[in-house]
């Protein structure tokens, strides 16, 4: 290629961007008022409300198109003096912490309101006030313990199904594989539902929670699919076979899912719903035993897998601990949604991998074992979910 043609290519690549920049500058430029119609309204969003000793703390974000000042705070629509840190002026997307000295009562609902400089009041309702958790060593250990009970132990127990699965005929084996697909599919839908719920209740509209969930799910799916294909290609000639890779991907997928479960438990404890979280813990423990089964199913035809299994059990189970920490101490709707969507995307990838892997061997997709297995898997999960 000659020097001048390279130059031409470079120009043709850059020219549209330059022109677009000029257009934007022209539209936004100071002298161009011709596009200014309509009224821009300030908007803030109360992301998080914490109840501390004689104080209510509100994390507020400017989610509107223009700068705002937060000028009045109220509790149950009664004006209260407050402090705002670092200051009451919020630029786009900036957050501030509003501290309202207030002797609140435990278990009582509160509506917290903030008024902006144009006199508009924004409100968030807390169903029941409970003291926010302050991270200390004891609580960190407590959450780690919960994570172990919910994540690691049940998954490990589930792994003990290995000898049973090894003895199965091909049809029965496929049935159980399909059963795990059913379980996983349900978990993915469950994660998505949870993500949508958080997006609806805790995330400002500006952040397009729904689109974010879809985007992260799809990205995770393709990302993991890419990585796992690389992994399988790389290990083609080694002793680790496709079943191990698939099993590993199942473990990773479930790991993300358990992170989400940890978040749910941590957040429930953090919000003071201790009774609810005890129930959550028992429910997740039962539920997660079936996840061990999903990890172990692809491995049934492989030999000497005990150390690998243990590693996979940890990969799948440990994230529950991190989830509980994040959920309990640093709950942010934004990160929760992202983790849950990653979990869903990871599970979809696992399901596709299992189906593609089995299809190579026989007519799996339209077989009785698959139909029955998936149905039963979904049904079992639905029943257990009712009790959680």
């Amino acid at each position: 290629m000659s020097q001048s043609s390279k130059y031409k290519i470079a120009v043709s690549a850059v020219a549209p961007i330059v022109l677009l920049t000029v257009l934007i500058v022209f539209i936004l430029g100071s002298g161009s008022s011709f596009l200014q119609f309509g009224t821009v309204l300030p908007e803030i969003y109360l992301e998080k409300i914490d109840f501390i000793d004689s104080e209510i703390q509100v994390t507020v974000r400017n989610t509107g198109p223009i700068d705002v000042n937060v000028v009045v705070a109220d509790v149950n629509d009664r004006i209260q003096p407050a402090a705002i840190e670092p200051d009451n002026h919020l630029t786009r997307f900036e957050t501030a912490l509003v501290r309202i000295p207030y002797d609140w009562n435990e278990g009582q609902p509160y509506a917290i309101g903030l008024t902006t400089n144009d006199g508009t009041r924004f409100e968030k309702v807390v169903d029941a006030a409970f003291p926010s958790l302050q991270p200390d060593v004891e609580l960190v250990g407590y959450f780690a313990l919960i994570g172990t009970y919910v994540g690691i132990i049940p998954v490990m127990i589930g792994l003990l199904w290995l000898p049973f699965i090894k003895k199965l005929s091909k049809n029965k084996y496929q049935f159980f594989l399909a059963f795990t697909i059913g379980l996983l599919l349900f978990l993915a839908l469950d994660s998505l539902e949870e993500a949508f719920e958080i997006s609806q209740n805790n995330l400002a509209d500006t952040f397009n929670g729904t689109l974010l969930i879809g985007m992260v799910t799809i990205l995770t799916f393709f990302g993991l699919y890419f990585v796992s294909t690389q992994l399988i290609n790389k290990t083609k000639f080694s002793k680790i076979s496709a079943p191990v890779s698939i099993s590993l991907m199942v473990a990773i997928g479930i790991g993300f899912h358990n992170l989400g479960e940890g978040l749910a438990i941590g957040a429930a404890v953090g919000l003071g719903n201790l009774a609810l979280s005890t129930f959550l813990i028992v429910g997740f423990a039962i539920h997660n035993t079936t996840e061990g089964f999903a990890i172990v199913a692809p491995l049934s035809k492989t030999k000497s897998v005990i150390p690998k299994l243990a590693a996979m059990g940890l990969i799948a189970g440990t994230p529950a601990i991190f989830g509980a920490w994040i959920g309990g101490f640093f709950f942010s709707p934004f990160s929760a949604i992202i983790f849950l969507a990653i979990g869903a995307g990871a599970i979809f990838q696992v399901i596709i991998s299992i189906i593609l892997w089995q299809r190579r061997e026989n007519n799996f997709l339209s077989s009785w074992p698959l139909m029955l297995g998936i149905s039963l898997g979904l049904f079992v999960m639905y029943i257990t979910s009712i009790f959680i």
Partner: protein
Amino acid sequence: MRSQSTKMLAVLLVIFAVSTLYFIFPTITVAQEEPKTFLTHTGLMIKTTGEVIDPIGYNGEPLEFNPDKFLRDFDYGIVTELDDGTILREFTITARDDQIMEVSPGVFYNVWTFNGSVPGPTIRATEGDLIQIHFINEGSKSHTMHFHGVHKAEMDGVFENVGPGGKFTYEFYADPVGLHLYHCHVHPVEEHIAHGLYGAYIVDPKEPREPADELVFVLNGLDTDFDGENNFYAANTIPFYYKHHPIQISTNQLVRAYVVNILEFDAVNNFHLHGTLFHHFPAGTDSVPSGFNDMLTMSQGDRQILEFEYEYPGLYMFHAHVTEFSEKGWVSSFLVKEQNEVKSDLIGNEPVI
């Protein structure tokens, strides 16, 4: 080739992760300043490095509208004596609807005004005076002035809308004696009143009332987000104003309060006085008080003249006993001092002529 694509993937992931972090933790860097201690009116205390937003204990720059000045400010008009001995009082009142006013510290609201303020001037005359109001509408909408009291139908300010740029002269005799009010009566009336087009109108008896420290309280509210509910309540517009600026009166001095309720959206308002009781005169039309009380309940448009004295010096609250209103601004206080301590120029608003 593979390592390249892996690198690309890694770069993409890093970019994604960093941009996510930015959104989650945009305020990670907070300058550490010396914390200041902040004590609330309820006695709670916090230390903060940030700003204090406290309309209740506000001690910052004064706002544009000064309730202290309004409190004892009476507009007697330009006075001329007609040939037949009648006193003519001429007032020029201009309506506007484009002002943005700071109604509570940091809260900016589009007020509609008579002579540039909410409430409009307190118009005061003596029974039988001829009142001429030269009304000029400098607003962008139609406005009128509707006075309560006795007058001809065409002076009622209801059917003769004054368009933008228009003028109208209202003429009537001050009648009857009492405490009345005026407000814009253009449809939708609720909107025109809620934005601030109202004021007090006092007709004194020919035989003057007993000298007193005379105060005007126009009880009003502000629906700053237009949801049909008041965000703020007040005596004389600015929420909590007389809470952080107590009104100075003196012991054993007759105080006469002209109380007008022009609150929109809430059917009932009231007035509760601490530390003493008042005699009250509904609409101020009778010379005999209709009660001796510390509570007064008033519906929309109701007025009452209150007369009271304090025996003991000190800080006394007066506020709406609809506690919601008081906790949203309609809470005030009197600082009662021994008689010789109070500046004499604050006492006794004798009518001229």
